[in-house]
């Protein structure tokens, strides 16, 4: 129970939480004070002066801004006096005298705090007869954000969000007096991964996003609460639609998850849902390539072909971009209808499923707020889990000590107290020194001894041995008062693993080795093959060798995403039968015999589970494109054709079945999520013990020594099919570049901007970077120009031109 103080507002006494700003405390007891610059998630600046109230002081009542004033015991406040009212009307009149009042053509019109507060607190008419201030109408401040300086009320929200929250100090005030304006710095656009937040924060129509301008009016928008599927944070979003199309995605303040913030990828990727390149009808391979077919013909073909193999000859890859219900149905279909345990939602790019799904003790995102020390051993959070990156930044702002270990510079290095840099491939060696506090690592080690510690562990890049993350988790777990979050990044991968889309997991975080539970599940499902199945890499090898014969691809693109694209290509070419549930024809689904059009995020409802194990509702906001269908509905029909009733036609039935048979999900019924959680989702299991507790221990990973070791990290804007199909951000995709330490570059020899080849096949320009350890090369994964590069730990690098 927090301390309270007693304050008097307009003659009424209230007990409010101590340490709060008056404007917040007043709102908590129903006294709303108007504001523009104040925002709960930003530091107060007291600039707009809209929130002035009278406060009793030693020299009588004094006007004070309630956004900067902390409540104190006995404070007497008047928010309605004549003086306050006059000040409020005065400030609103001042704000409006130079405002263009172009509300009829302003995107903010109808949801504009300036309009709303003028209606409630403002003067009826203006007394201003002079010429208004003029600026050039909107100027682009980045590729996705435009600025109309005439509408700006200079509240400083965007500047604070960019500086303090995102750590991208790219917006500033220039000039002074009546000429003050927001601007970018010369030749430095507002190219922040978080720029869209400023559009949402802007209390007027000064900042707009290129994709939404003039698209809709707020009162015509449909609103659907859902979660973002861009990464595993599952930021809460308001998916907004107009005339049956998604037009805008806003962040929702779910303080346990995203606190309202989104990355620009979360915010702008939705346009891919309406891409003209979507697969909108079933495609069946004919003599001249794909031909459109009816669902019934296509499904009949799939049912008869899959029914013609022994269970173990078939495998399924994917399911991470689906809801829990779709993933569960896939797991049930593969195991109980096809009779195969060969299923994997990861593409050889992830972690041991037991570690990811059941690591103990597991942290929550908001544990970061309470951590004394945060230890990151894994991918660059800014590139892979941007909203988690913001949460770590917040924790550091509030005093947490950050320790970052990575084979190359990361977005967090600038605020880290300790940066441990290791050559890609030699992490094991460094981790051991680090754990024992060897010379050079004492400071970082000391920080880890000051709990509570939250360890964020994952795979720094595709080229890194996944056992490294487990080793790092083991080190974290050996610390007193420590918790862990694993860092898988793909959409609903944690939900998929929890639903049993892993060769060694059954639904509900149960090991395939748990016979007792397997028996129970067999009773529920009718049939269940025992034992552990094949992983993605093993399946691809077996397909290529002929040991397996058929493949079900579910929204997965192994030719792009698995560590050995060549193997994936050979495997899919060798397979006798491939059915792909996909929204696009990808480099992988192009090898399919049948492509079934998949409904995607925005079109399907159900639940999803994020990296901390939080289950939230996912809600459809538009109809599926063309004939696209949800995975559970399609599999239910196919199973019927194969003589089995999956009971998966309705999402709610599947949710209830999961609650009944998946131990960690006991009690997670549709009713529970709708009525008994506060809308922000719930961490599973609700009560009782985790069915499987994975206790990471320190393991040793062989140190790789070769001339140049590859660090192959993910980039936020990559050349993935979704990014390519979202016009707002497609142009932001990174180009291939090879980052080398200057010393290695001089050995080749190459200079900045020269071209090198990697493995004699991939050519790209060189960027010199002294944060890259000597002996390493850093190449972003799956960007324009790295498609097909195998993520091996050592690569051959040669100068192509220049140099010498």
């Amino acid at each position: 129970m927090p301390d309270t103080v007693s304050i008097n507002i307009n003659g009424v006494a209230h007990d409010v939480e101590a340490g709060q700003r008056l404007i917040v405390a007043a709102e908590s007891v129903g006294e709303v004070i108007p504001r523009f610059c104040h925002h709960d998630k930003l530091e107060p600046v007291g600039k707009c002066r809209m929130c002035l109230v009278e406060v009793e002081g030693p020299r009588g009542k004094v006007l004070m801004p309630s956004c900067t004033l902390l409540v104190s015991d006995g404070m007497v406040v008047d928010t309605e006096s004549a003086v306050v009212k006059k000040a409020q009307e005065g400030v609103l009149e001042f704000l409006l005298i130079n405002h263009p009042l172009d509300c009829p053509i302003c995107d903010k019109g109808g949801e504009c705090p300036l309009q709303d507060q003028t209606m409630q607190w403002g003067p009826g008419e203006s007394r201003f007869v002079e010429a208004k201030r003029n600026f050039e109408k909107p100027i682009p401040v980045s590729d996705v954000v435009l600025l109309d300086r005439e509408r700006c009320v200079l509240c400083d929200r965007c500047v604070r969000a960019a500086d303090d929250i995102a750590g991208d100090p790219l917006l500033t005030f220039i000039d002074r007096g009546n000429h003050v304006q927001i601007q970018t710095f010369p030749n430095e656009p507002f190219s922040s991964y978080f720029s869209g937040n400023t559009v949402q924060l802007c209390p007027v129509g000064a900042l707009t996003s290129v994709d939404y301008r003039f698209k809709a009016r707020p009162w015509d928008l449909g609103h659907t609460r859902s979660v973002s599927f861009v990464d595993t944070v599952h930021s809460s979003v308001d998916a907004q639609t107009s005339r049956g199309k998604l037009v805008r995605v806003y962040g929702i303040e779910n303080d346990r998850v995203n606190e309202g913030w989104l990355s620009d990828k979360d915010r702008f990727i939705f346009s891919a849902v309406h891409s003209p390149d979507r697969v909108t009808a079933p495609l069946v391979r004919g003599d001249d390539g794909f031909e459109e077919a009816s669902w019934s013909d296509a499904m009949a073909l799939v049912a008869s072909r899959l029914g013609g193999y022994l269970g173990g000859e078939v495998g399924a890859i994917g399911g991470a971009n689906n809801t829990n219900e779709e993933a569960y149905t896939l797991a049930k279909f593969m195991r109980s209808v096809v009779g195969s345990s060969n299923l994997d939602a990861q593409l050889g790019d992830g972690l041991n499923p037991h570690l990811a799904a059941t690591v103990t003790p597991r942290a929550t995102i908001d544990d970061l707020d309470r951590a004394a020390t945060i230890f990151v051993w894994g991918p660059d959070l800014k590139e892979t889990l941007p909203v988690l990156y913001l949460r770590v930044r917040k924790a550091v702002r509030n005093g947490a000590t950050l320790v970052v270990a990575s084979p190359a510079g990361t977005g967090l290095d600038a605020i880290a107290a300790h940066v441990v840099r290791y050559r890609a491939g030699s992490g094991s060696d460094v981790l051991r020194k680090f754990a024992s506090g060897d010379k050079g690592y004492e400071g970082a080690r000391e920080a880890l001894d000051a709990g509570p510690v939250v360890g964020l562990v994952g795979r720094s890049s595709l080229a890194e041995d996944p056992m490294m993350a487990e080793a790092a988790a083991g080190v974290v777990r050996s610390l007193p008062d420590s918790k862990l979050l694993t860092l898988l990044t793909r959409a609903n991968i944690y939900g998929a693993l929890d639903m049993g889309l892993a060769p060694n997991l059954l639904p509900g975080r149960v090991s395939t080795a748990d016979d007792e539970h397997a028996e129970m599940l067999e009773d529920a499902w009718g049939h269940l093959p025992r034992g552990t199945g094949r992983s993605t890499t093993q399946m691809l090898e077996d397909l290529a060798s002929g040991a397996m014969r058929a493949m079900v691809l579910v929204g997965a693109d192994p030719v792009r995403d698995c560590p050995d694209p060549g193997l994936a290509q050979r495997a899919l070419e060798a397979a006798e039968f491939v059915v792909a549930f996909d929204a696009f024809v990808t480099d992988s689904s192009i090898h399919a015999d049948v492509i079934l059009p998949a409904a995607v995020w925005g079109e399907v409802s159900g639940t999803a589970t994020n990296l901390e194990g939080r289950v939230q509702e996912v809600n459809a906001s538009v109809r599926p494109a063309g004939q696209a269908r949800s995975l559970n509905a399609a599999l239910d029909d196919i199973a019927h054709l194969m003589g089995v009733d999956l009971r998966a036609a309705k999402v709610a039935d599947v949710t209830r079945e999961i609650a009944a048979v998946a131990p960690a999900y006991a009690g997670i019924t549709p009713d529970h999520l709708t009525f008994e959680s506060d809308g922000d989702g719930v961490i599973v299991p609700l009560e009782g013990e985790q069915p499987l507790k994975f206790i990471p221990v320190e393991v040793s990973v062989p140190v790789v020594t070769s001339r140049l070791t590859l660090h192959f990290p993910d980039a936020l804007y990559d050349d993935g099919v979704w990014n390519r199909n979202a016009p707002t951000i497609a142009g932001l995709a990174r180009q291939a570049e090879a980052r080398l330490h200057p010393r290695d570059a001089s050995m080749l020899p190459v200079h900045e901007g020269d071209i090198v080849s990697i493995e004699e096949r991939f050519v790209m320009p060189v960027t010199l970077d002294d944060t890259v350890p000597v002996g390493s090369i850093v190449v972003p994964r799956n960007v324009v120009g790295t498609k097909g590069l195998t993520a091996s730990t050592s690569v051959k690098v040669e100068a192509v031109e220049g140099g010498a």
Partner: protein
Amino acid sequence: MTDRILTVRMEAHPSDSHTIDRYVKTGGYKALRKALKKMKPEAVAAEVNASNIRGRGGAGFPMGVKWGFLGAAEPRYLVVNCDESEPGTFNDRQLVERDPHQLLEGIAISSYALGISRAFIYVRGEYARGARRLQRAIDEAKEAGYLGEDILSSGFSLDVTIHLGGGAYICGEETALLNSLEGRRGEPRLKPPFPAIAGLYAKPTIVNNVESISNVPWITLNGGLAYADIGPDRSAGTKMLSISGHINKPGNHEIVMGMTWRELIYDIGGGIRDGNELKAWIPGGASSPWFVPDKHLDTRVELDEVGANGSMIGAGAVVVMDETTNVVAAAHSIVRFFAHESCGQCTPCREGTSWMEDILARIMDGRGRPEDIDLLMDVSDNISPGLSWPPAMTTICPLGPSATAPVASIVRYFRDEIEAMMPNKEAANA
């Protein structure tokens, strides 16, 4: 009784009062020697407290009390405010150009008293000559062992750095000055925290005006009580007044407070030019409400009495206007200055000052409307509610309310003159 402290040397030795040789020959750095050799830091601070000297930058806050607020965190800083930008003030300029060592000695003694080893002088950008002389004086003083490491073998060290401003009036406001000194935009900070607790680089900082600090050597040498004995009780010491405008003897005059405005203007200032009638004067710089002969000529030049009469002595800029003055043009000139110098961060100042400038310009152009007078007063009221003294504010700092002073003054005393500038409707209709 001493009647001048700060300007004795420069008047006696106009050609070289700024050099260290002249300074030392005329008793300079004796006070520093006394403080370092014979006094504990607390004893020096106690003398300053006993002197009752009130800050000369404008607000008139007792200097000893301000020193007492200095936080304990290390490091602590002394920042000397030489961003003298108020229209009509030029006394700090004379002090740094003509007697820079007096200021440096004051800085050294004050730093010793406050346990500070790093001081900054923030000099108005246009004061190139003053800055040059200050820098030369710093170099001389270092050379002679009055600044730098282990001053006069006392173990006390002090580094003094000059920083030139970029030409913004607002940087004379102490927290905007600190922002500017840190390399940020010159915008006033929210208070609290006050600079004495979290000032420069978020460390405890004393910000004092040039004139205030220049008095410290005399106080150290002669004792706080001797200083307190000069002039009226609550306006102790001497004050440099910069007298300008339609006056026969414009310039800086160091006076003992307590005389009447009539004595100041007609005796010290030599009366009005060409024998004209006095129309009004600004007692303490552009931001202070005006005085008029009828009401104020026989009131006293004393901090509290001027305050009680609804204005201030401020930084000591007296601007005299004779009967030929167009008061609307005068007010417009001042309001335009404040509109131009508003930092623009808070709404009432940013928007209100420009609006008032526009209205005054329109009246001067003969396009005024009868309702404009009430509008001017109401806009002023929305920046400084009640238009009382000391001013209430809807703003972050007093710059916005300052712009209302000339407006309220001309409406209060010269309403008929404003109305006379309005177009004659009957004539227009005829």
